[in-house]
């Protein structure tokens, strides 16, 4: 078979999926973000049956499906469960690399939240170290109302 395209550049059609999204936060997430924005408080919800406090908060217990979840304020300090130092400027990163992501188990919570770790010596970060939230000065009701978590010295 003769390859008729041997000397021809393959044609490529460029496009993108440009669909605007506006996700309704729902009443449960809204309460979380209002407390964060207005009072610099991190709220979770607790299931008395499963004896677990979830952060981010859940409207219904994901384990037993009961709806009577109690609002609980958790600490803005906690333990670093794991982390990564992103060195490459990945397309998804909104900040300039290196960026450190951490999973933080806040005191009073049974689940961890994802956030940035900053002001830490890269060689000194360890699983198990204590970190505390640094709230953003300007808060609009999003996860970015927490600027980052920093080591507790």
């Amino acid at each position, binding site marked *: 078979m003769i390859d008729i395209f041997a000397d021809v550049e393959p044609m490529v*059609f460029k*496009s993108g*999926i*440009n*669909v*605007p*999204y*506006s*996700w*309704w*936060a*729902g*009443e*449960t*997430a809204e309460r979380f973000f209002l407390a964060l924005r207005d009072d610099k408080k991190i709220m979770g919800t607790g299931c008395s049956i499963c004896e677990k406090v979830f952060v981010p908060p*859940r*409207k*219904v217990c*994901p*384990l*037993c*499906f009961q709806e009577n979840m109690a609002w609980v304020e958790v600490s803005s300090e906690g333990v670093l469960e794991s982390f990564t130092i992103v060195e490459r400027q990945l397309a998804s990163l909104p900040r300039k690399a290196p960026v450190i992501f951490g999973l933080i188990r806040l005191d009073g919570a049974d689940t961890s939240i994802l956030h940035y770790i900053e002001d830490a010596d890269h060689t000194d970060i360890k699983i198990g170290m204590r970190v505390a939230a640094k709230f953003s000065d300007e808060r609009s009701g999003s996860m970015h109302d927490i600027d980052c978590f920093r080591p507790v010295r």
Partner: protein
Amino acid sequence: MPKKRVAIVGTGQTYHKSHRPDVNGQELINEAVKRALQDADLTIKDIDAVVIGNMDHFEGINYVDCWSVDGSGGIMKPVIKLTTGGTTGSTLAIGGYQLVASGFFEKVLIIGWEKNSESDTTGAITTAFDPVWDRLVFAGAISGLAAEAQAYMAKYGATEKDAARVSVRDRKHACNNPHAQLRREITIEDVLASPMLADPIHLLDVCPRTDGACAVIMANEDCAGKITAVPDWIWATANRHKYTYLGDVNWGELDSLAGASREIYAKAGIREPKKEIDVIELYQPYSFAGIIWIEDLGIAERGKGAEYIWSGATDMGGELPINPSGGVIACNPIGATGLIRCAEAALQVMGKAEARQVPDVNFAISTGFGGCMWSDMLLHGKRKPDF
């Protein structure tokens, strides 16, 4: 013969609305799931597997099966996602049937959902079509539907007024369904006076955009009768997703539905569908389909669909009521829509359809429509299948 016969033993729906700002996606899903569990008097612990689907680009969430487990109850359970566009809901129903019939699972939870208010539905649908050939010249779902309507009108002389009669029927039926989104009667004049979207389709000829979720629980023959006194037995399923390119479609006939329905009739031994079927929940996204597709189903002769509609036979109280729920024209959370048809057909067979109940239902049909003029279909029966 399937390894295990399968029945629907519980259904749950949200109260479908244009916007649900009070809940996020997982919470919306959870509402439908909890209602289905309550209907079947089961708990989430009784569920062996979860089948879920939506259309990715309507919510912009990748791996929805994984993301949704807090709401679906899928934590530490088998969860699988099926997605085929508009047919997603009916595809899910067929998937649930297969998973139970295979003997892998005894009780399966099936969930279809959509929050159409969160994105640009038409923008997302347009990307379904081939990026090189079709996407640049064809926009959204409505242009395909308009092409079908024009082809049919040219062939058989049906009118916009004929189609409007279908909208009037479905919107009237919707008043009996507390879950429907649009629950206000309209007249033929209202339809014809509403804005023209894509000739010959007026605004009141087409489905709305809806936020909603539907959950259905299927169980095998060993336990279905213990869960509910009147299970809805799935007699047969079939589908045809024939076309890839819009130019391939045989416009003016929905031959995918003709093919799927003939397969189902043959499997179940149905010779005269008009007489043997008691109610149809048709995935009918616009009014003209209410005329055309009943011909493909073998309910009306070719070109006689409008006549059959005008006779009142498909109204509540007629010989073969279609869309007692109000159908898609009254409510369309796309990923859930096909599953809502299935759930509504089940309610009819189980005798739980309340104000929209058709008397003495022995056989019901539910369908799904989507993709490139694709069709799915399920046959529901009061009696346990004898094959």
